[in-house]
């Protein structure tokens, strides 16, 4: 079997992994004035920053799982590149959510058992273990991370802004080449210090502000 169907399964928004609780900082951005027209640049800036870190982390973790190398340096490299504490916390919570599902799907996976033994693994590392188990290639894993982020923001934008749902999906479609480039860039990475380290201080600030607001639709 090709990995296409497993990719579709893992990329499906209907997956019970708490995706509907996430806006990828879009809710905080809208609160501080981001308009509907600015959502595509917002998505692009995520691809250039936080998503790059997540995808790089996933790919390096995948390599190390397959090579039998320890994952702790990957966890540390990811944490060092994710300075906002609420973002780290969100990724770990989503990692727990994803782990619950994939352990049910692949109960005998040694890769998932290894990741389950880590202290609060972040989402890209759990995703890497699912990829290692199901034979998903590094570039495919990068595509999965990037695509999921585009759809998370697009889907949240429909709840937060006055939009035609067809517009939101068009934005995702238009940004697919960017997602493909990102996946190609990170696919060859094998070492924790290879993981890109861009910074996006505005996203970090939004994540931190959002964590302290009491009026919100989305968890993050």
């Amino acid at each position, binding site marked *: 079997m090709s990995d296409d169907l497993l990719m579709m399964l893992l990329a499906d928004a209907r997956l019970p992994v*708490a995706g509907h609780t996430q806006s990828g900082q879009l809710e905080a951005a809208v609160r501080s004035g981001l308009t509907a027209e600015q959502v595509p640049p917002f998505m692009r800036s995520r691809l250039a920053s936080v998503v790059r870190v997540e995808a790089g982390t996933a790919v390096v973790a995948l390599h190390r799982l397959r090579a039998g190398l320890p994952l702790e340096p990957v966890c540390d490299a990811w944490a060092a590149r994710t300075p906002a504490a609420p973002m780290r916390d969100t990724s770990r919570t989503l990692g727990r*959510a994803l782990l619950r599902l994939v352990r049910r799907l692949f109960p005998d996976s040694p890769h998932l058992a290894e990741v389950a033994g880590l202290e609060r693994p972040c989402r890209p590392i759990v995703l890497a273990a699912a990829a290692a188990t199901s034979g998903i290639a590094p570039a495919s894993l990068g595509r999965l991370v990037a695509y999921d982020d585009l759809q998370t923001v697009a889907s949240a934008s429909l709840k937060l802004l006055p939009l035609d749902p067809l517009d939101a999906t068009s934005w995702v479609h238009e940004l697919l080449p960017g997602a493909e480039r990102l996946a190609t860039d990170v696919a060859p990475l094998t070492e924790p210090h290879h993981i890109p380290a861009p910074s996006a201080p505005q996203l970090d600030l939004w994540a931190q502000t959002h964590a302290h607001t009491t*009026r919100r*639709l989305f968890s993050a």
Partner: protein
Amino acid sequence: MPENATKNDRGLRIGVCGPVGTGKSSLIALLCRELSADLEIGVVTNDIYTDEDARFLRSAGVLDPARIRAVETGACPHTAIRDDVTANLIAVEELEEEFAPLDVVLVESGGDNLTATFSKGLVDHQVFVIDVSSGDDIPRKGGPGIERADLLVVNKTDLAPYVGVDPVAMVSDAGSVREGRPVIALSRTDPASVEALVEWVRSELARHRGGALVPADPGPMAPHFHADGTSHTHDHQHA
């Protein structure tokens, strides 16, 4: 991991759902007040837009504020209690780990419509709350919560004279669609009704501990009739 524990090794998880404004938070505050002296309790709330319910419960002073968690559901309360319960389940598990052993965890759904009920994957038992001021036709409208939740509460019966509703008829209408499942007409000013609610929780907790409680799904669909004269529920698929 907690999900591997057999059900009666952990506390009883009770869901409270029903339309907006029917008194779900007040009912939970009431249960905490009546039960927290001798039971260890945790609460998870699912407001749609604020943490108002969690704050209400914390300010009610009936439970240690750390035992009350608000979960944001991305404006999808129905999804969060039924299709993708992950965020709620994680909150429940965290409470159970942090305050072990808990006897009861109460999960309050964000106010939704008459069709929203909990998944068996999230709670063992569920209470559906309606109130007299929503109108006496609500029980007759039915739906999975009204017809098949483990307990139906008709709340705020003390307001009945002011909204021109006969609570006795409302309870009777509800009873006729529930095939013997319990209905409690509740008012926080009526100690006997409060006692009936508290007793229900205690007896369900005893059944849970004894392994006799088997979660039942109210289901998304009412039993219905087909043109060929057959009727069925949606425990199985259409042919």
